[in-house]
């Protein structure tokens, strides 16, 4: 028989509703697993067993009274840059080491409203800036497939938790691939909804025009259940879309037969892509053709400028977003006599190297002398790239590519060549540039490490993304494997 912690959220939900198991048992199973394995995995920065048990009791109450929703009683891990009332939210930064929000992020209100059970706050690159989780100011999260490797970033802790059976579901945030790339590295599903469909309220901002919260799970159905629970219009966010929550009702009604997929040559036939990744992806393309889908190779000429554009726009926004961390109202402060010294000292000592580097780049690109040459130019390229992608999506159901050109990196590897390692986000960044929904689907192993395939569709067609992902999962018989670590 399967362990409780091997079940998907949908399976758990079924057993909870049928009273085969209790929400408390489910929570305890995960708490035990976390206690046993988090030290080696580093997935969670903090857990709160008392709060978890209390939430499980509440959930069981709802189940007993017949007031349960699909995800009532299901445990979830939360990336530690999503504000949780009365629970420390550190962004894996020393500066916020002791910061406890006084309010819940909208997505947290929603998961509480659904009677979900929070297990803890997961590790990330400091302020979500990084691709390997090594920029956490505390300790790096590890990849359950190989503990000497990174689970990816920035939502590495959330991905490691779901892949390592320390949570059935997790929330991450994705600014340039921070959900999809770790999902790919850890062999699970990770979904970035359309920009504006999940509220950003309470997500500690990195690149505001790119940031989006989304789910990690071990099946498309689980992704859809969680996406449904956390999405919908939020009057607390001006950029929130008016649409209803992401629906999963049509998810199972699709088929690969007749679907038209575009594969950008730039995201596949490129030297940045490892041979193993290419092979794995090509095999899946073959499977898709056999299942009745058409696949065309297309071109998105500006796509190789995406990474550069991203580092201009995201750092510009970050330099401004992180200005509020001046040590006056919240977080840690290094006091000095004069205000200006205090701000400089607090930020200088308590921000990590990568964060300071990005703030400096961002400040530079916004400065009067470089604004036109960098910021404005990047926005122009962004507009052209989005135009090119929109044009392709007018003629195709989805654009597919490997999620990442590489498999999980060795810890310590990424710092050797910062520019090359930024290419890891080559395929994921364009989705954030245009706000498109995109999901990473596990599509096999290369050298015994997971490879992911990304499916992106037009803006506000999240339901279609999920339907296609579900068809792929079913028709290509994709099963998430649980590595032993």
């Amino acid at each position, binding site marked *: 028989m399967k362990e409780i912690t091997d079940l998907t959220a949908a399976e758990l939900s079924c057993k909870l509703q049928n009273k085969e198991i209790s929400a408390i048992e489910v929570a305890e199973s995960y708490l035990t697993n976390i206690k046993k394995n988090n030290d080696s995995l580093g997935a969670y920065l903090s857990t709160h067993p008392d709060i978890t048990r209390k939430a499980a009791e509440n959930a069981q109450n709802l189940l007993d009274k017949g007031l349960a929703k699909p995800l009532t009683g299901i445990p979830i891990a939360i990336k530690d840059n*999503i*504000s949780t009332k009365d629970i420390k*939210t550190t*962004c894996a930064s020393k500066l*916020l080491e002791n*910061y406890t*929000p*006084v*309010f819940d*992020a909208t997505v947290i209100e929603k998961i509480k409203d659904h009677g979900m059970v929070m297990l803890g706050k997961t590790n990330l690159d400091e302020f979500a800036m990084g691709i390997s989780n090594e920029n956490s100011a505390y300790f790096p999260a590890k990849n359950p497939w190989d503990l000497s490797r990174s689970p990816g970033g920035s939502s590495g802790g959330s991905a490691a938790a779901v892949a390592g059976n320390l949570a059935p579901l997790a929330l991450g945030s994705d600014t340039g691939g921070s959900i999809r790339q770790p999902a790919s590295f850890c062999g699970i599903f990770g979904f970035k909804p359309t920009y504006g469909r999940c509220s*950003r*309220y*309470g*997500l*500690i*901002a990195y*690149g*505001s*025009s790119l940031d989006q919260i989304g789910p990690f799970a071990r099946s498309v159905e689980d992704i859809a259940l969680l996406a449904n629970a956390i999405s919908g219009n939020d*009057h*607390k*966010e*001006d*950029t929130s879309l008016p649409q209803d929550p992401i629906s999963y009702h049509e998810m199972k009604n699709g088929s690969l037969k007749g679907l038209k997929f575009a594969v950008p040559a730039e995201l596949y036939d490129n030297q940045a892509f490892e041979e193993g990744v290419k092979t794995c992806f090509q095999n899946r393309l073959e499977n898709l053709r056999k299942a009745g889908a058409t696949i065309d190779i297309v071109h998105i000429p500006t796509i190789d400028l995406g990474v550069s554009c991203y580092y201009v726009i995201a750092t*510009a*926004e970050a*330099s*401004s977003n*992180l*200005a*509020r*961390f*001046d040590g*006056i*109202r*919240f977080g840690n402060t290094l006091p000095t006599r004069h*205000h*200006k010294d205090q*701000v400089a000292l607090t930020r200088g000592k308590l921000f990590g190297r990568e964060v300071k580097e990005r703030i400096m780049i961002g*400040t530079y690109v*916004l*400065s*009067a002398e470089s*604004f036109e040459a960098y*910021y404005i130019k990047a926005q122009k390229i962004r507009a052209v790239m989005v135009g090119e992608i929109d044009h392709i999506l007018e003629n195709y159901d989805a654009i597919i590519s490997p999620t990442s050109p590489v498999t999980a990196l060795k810890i310590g590897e990424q710092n050797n060549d910062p520019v090359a390692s930024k290419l890891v986000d080559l395929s994921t960044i364009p989705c954030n540039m245009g706000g498109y929904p995109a999901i990473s689907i596990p599509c096999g192993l290369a050298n015994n490490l997971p490879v992911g395939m990304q499916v992106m569709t037009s803006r506000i067609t999240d339901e279609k993304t999920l339907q296609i992902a579900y068809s792929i999962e079913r028709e290509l018989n994709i099963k998430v494997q649980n590595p032993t670590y």
Partner: protein
Amino acid sequence: MAEYTLSTGMEVHAELETDSKMFCRCPVEFGAEPNTRVCPVCLGMPGTLPVPNRKAIEFVLKTALALNCQIAKRSVFHRKNYFYPDLPKGYQISQFGDTNVLGHFGYLEVPTKNGGIKKINIRKVQIEEDTGKLMHLPSGGSGIDFNRAGVPLMEIVTDFPPDIETADEAKDYLVGLRQVLLYLKVCNGKMEEGSLRCEPNISIRVIGTDKYGTKTELKNLNSFRSVQHGIEYEYKRQVSLLENGESVKQETRGWDEGAEKTFPMRSKESEEDYKYFPDPDLVPMDFSDEYLEELKKTIPELPLAKYRRYQADYGLNHYDASILVAELSWSTYFDECIKMGGDPKLICNWMSSDFAKSLNETGQTFQSSLVTPKHLVELTTLIQKETISGKIGKDIFEISFKNGKMPSEIVQEKGLTQISDESVIEKYADEALKQNPELIDKYKSGQTNVIGFLVGQVMKQSKGRANPGIVQNIMKKKLDM
């Protein structure tokens, strides 16, 4: 020696009279306990997001339209980045540039002392959020009050080259602008509370040249008077610097009200780089022509139009028209009276003398007074038709002012109608002459001014009810007999 002329650009900040702040739902209140009108959004807590206050945007658009501005087809919020303890997010949400701010390229015309009109071009009308306030704590050290952080603020900037060339014009502009804001009900206009803040920049140049001198910016001006005096002082200071072979430094100076002097606050030698960029948290705003047309319809008749109408249609002079339009409460009351058939000149006289005095003494307004336009029109009509005398009118006004009774009612009750019956007046006259026989001789000997005293006696006898004109005629007739 060269003669210098003054050039002044005006930057005015007006706190908008909305119920809530610009990007959160905290109430806007002056004088509340520090840090009691705050929430995670206006404190800049991590993860919070701004949602614009539509009412505030409407207020600014309305003002921009009233100031004859063009409205941006697409307007954008920008972040102005700088560190300061009173700025919670490390940036202020503001607007930037010339044509994507809410309103641009408008003008304001204001009446001048000599009865002319001065046109002042306006560069832009934009919206931003206010900052918190630093304060010294009694216990030592400084505190920050964030109650004001996020209050919607409208910024109105005059165009360059500046149209304002005297301190008087600067004051006229500010008075005119304040009136417009009050008429639109978008700002309470209280300079002493900082709801309306004016920061003029001042430079001088040799008359007849177009080379503008170095600017200084003035702060701490919290009355019209300080604006006028501050600019005058700054003009003289700059002239004397140049005459002594020194130069004007680019700096911000404060106005010391007590000493009537400006003092250096901070130098502005290098322009700070605010790293403006469009705020990604806020969706650009588009305004349809239909929406703007609808909005235009809600703009009331503005002070200048009223000022012109009062002169052209009612024959009022510059002085009277200015007084009436200065406050919306005055012109509203006046217009209602005229609509009911009141005589403009009489109504104006009453409003600006006895009525204003009584309101002042009792702390009321025209709108809160028991004397409604209907009362005042009735009263002035009674006087105009000579039903009552002017003097009785004043008594009746006082009664009306206290208890709100209609003047006609009071006249009825107290029998105060004017006596114009000649036979009655003759009796009073005979009585007065009988009691003062020596005055008849004086009159006949040429001291005709004694008639005034005799008329006064008749008025006294009749308790002021006798028609003074008729009394005068009858008395003269009797003396000349």
